[in-house]
């Protein structure tokens, strides 16, 4: 990696900025540029470079390894089970609005799942809580069916607006699960207290369940009640994992690079703090 000229240049720039940071901190807050936030700027620049670099390499055809995510491998299996049983697949893209990042991730995964259900002609049901999520979901599913050459199988009611209030939505979906008994339930997005209500009802209905959320407080409920659970950023990785699109994979690998840098920083910090020299290093990460 160090053989690349651009990488060396960027690393030199980074080290220079880091060295300058100590002088920058001493300046007053009346300056035009918030030099006390330079650590955030460096992190942002590094993050952007990592993402863009990996996207570029992915586009060039460089193979990018992603570890197996059992929950996502099970999606196709779950849809296959539903097809064999002649039952439907229930997909919930979270209960938040379209401006929530997790909902966007959920809708993105819905597109991939819709392609699989279109391929196998499996009924798909997508209850949503907000009208704007309804609109986005309908477009995504329609596009998926068109891409799979199953335009005639598409029905606008696949994605349906159910209720605007959290527990009204939950009560309605629970009723749907107990009446229709879908073979597979897929929960991908932002969930709150209703996570256990949905998952436990789905379990009672005998469905195979795959869940994914970036909310750590809901993970225990999904883990207890679902067959597979995607934790935290695995939800954001799901879209890239299922599609294997270079743009998505590149973004994922860029994130991983940042995580490696954070891990290295933590280890360096632990060593320095243990030896009693960690204050200056810790101040580098002071958020303002």
């Amino acid at each position, binding site marked *: 990696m160090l053989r690349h000229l651009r990488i060396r240049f960027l690393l030199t720039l980074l080290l220079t900025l880091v060295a300058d940071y100590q002088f920058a901190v001493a300046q007053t807050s*009346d*300056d*035009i*540029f*918030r030099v006390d*936030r330079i650590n*955030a700027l460096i992190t*942002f620049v590094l*993050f*952007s470079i990592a*993402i863009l670099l990996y*996207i570029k390499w992915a586009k060039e055809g460089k193979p990018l390894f992603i570890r197996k995510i059992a929950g996502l491998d099970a999606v196709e299996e779950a849809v296959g089970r539903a097809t064999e049983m002649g039952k439907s697949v229930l997909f919930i893209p979270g209960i938040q609005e379209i*401006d929530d*990042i997790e909902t*966007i*991730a959920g809708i*993105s995964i819905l*597109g*991939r799942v*819709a392609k699989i259900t279109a391929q196998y002609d499996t009924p798909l049901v997508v209850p949503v809580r*907000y*009208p*704007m999520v*309804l*609109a*986005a979901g*309908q*477009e*995504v599913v329609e*596009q998926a069916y068109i*891409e799979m050459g199953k335009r005639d199988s598409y029905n606008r009611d696949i994605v349906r*607006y159910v*209720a*605007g*209030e959290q*527990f009204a939505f*939950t009560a309605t979906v629970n009723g749907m699960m107990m009446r229709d008994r879908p073979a597979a339930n897929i929960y991908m997005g932002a969930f709150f*207290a209703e996570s*256990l*209500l949905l*998952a*436990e009802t789905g*379990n009672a209905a005998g469905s195979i369940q795959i869940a994914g959320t*970036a909310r*750590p407080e809901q*993970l225990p*409920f999904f883990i*207890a*009640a679902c067959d597979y659970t995607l934790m*935290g*950023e695995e939800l*954001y*990785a799901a*879209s890239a994992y299922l599609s294997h699109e270079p*743009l*998505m994979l590149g*973004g*994922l690998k860029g*994130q991983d690079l940042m*995580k490696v840098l954070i891990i290295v920083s933590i280890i360096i910090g632990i060593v320095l703090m243990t030896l009693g020299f960690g204050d200056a290093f810790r101040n580098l990460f002071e958020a303002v």
Partner: protein
Amino acid sequence: MRTIVPVIVAFLAGFVMIVSFFFNPERTLLGRIESEVLVWVTIVGGFTLLLGVVSITRVNWQAVRTMKEGWGYNLLTLLSIFVMAIPAMLPASWSQLFGDAEGSIYDWLFFHVDYPMMATMFAMLAFYIASAAYRAFRARNPESTLLLVTATLVMLWRIPMGEAFLIQVGDTLLFGYNLPESINTYIMNGANLAVQRGILIGAALGAASMSLRIMLGIERTYMGKG
């Protein structure tokens, strides 16, 4: 146009907010733009609530008009929206029943209908967690045994009689070892803290990556494009 304009708007909005973060709002135009944008966002946010009401009304009215299955519930939804909203929007000076102050129709409906209904739905979780725990907390393998033991200890720690029991166990079997304090130190502030931090960092990076992809127009799912 339908595709390009939202992408450009997303890019410009994100770019302005990121760049303005690094400039002093009192000394620079960019910093002042950020303050102004924030005020505009709250105004636009208010209109999206209105949009939500319009959309909900439209969807439910369509279901009632076409007499879709369960249309009675859609009608009830519409009635509920207007019975609560209209009196709340009327000036309180006309009648004590209007507005949203204590004693108004809105206030009464909220505290006597909505409030207990929502609390009841949430309370159902107690039953569901019991049945989920009965089914899932089985010592099938080392990991699930660890989950089971940890969950039991934390459940005991969070109740006074459980805490007293743990103290007693520590005194009689573990030579006075303070079990509740250890649970707080090693489980809540130890393993739990570390794991939560890891998940938070990962999720934050994932969200940041997705935000960057949205800004750069790589991710367009929010527009309905897969």
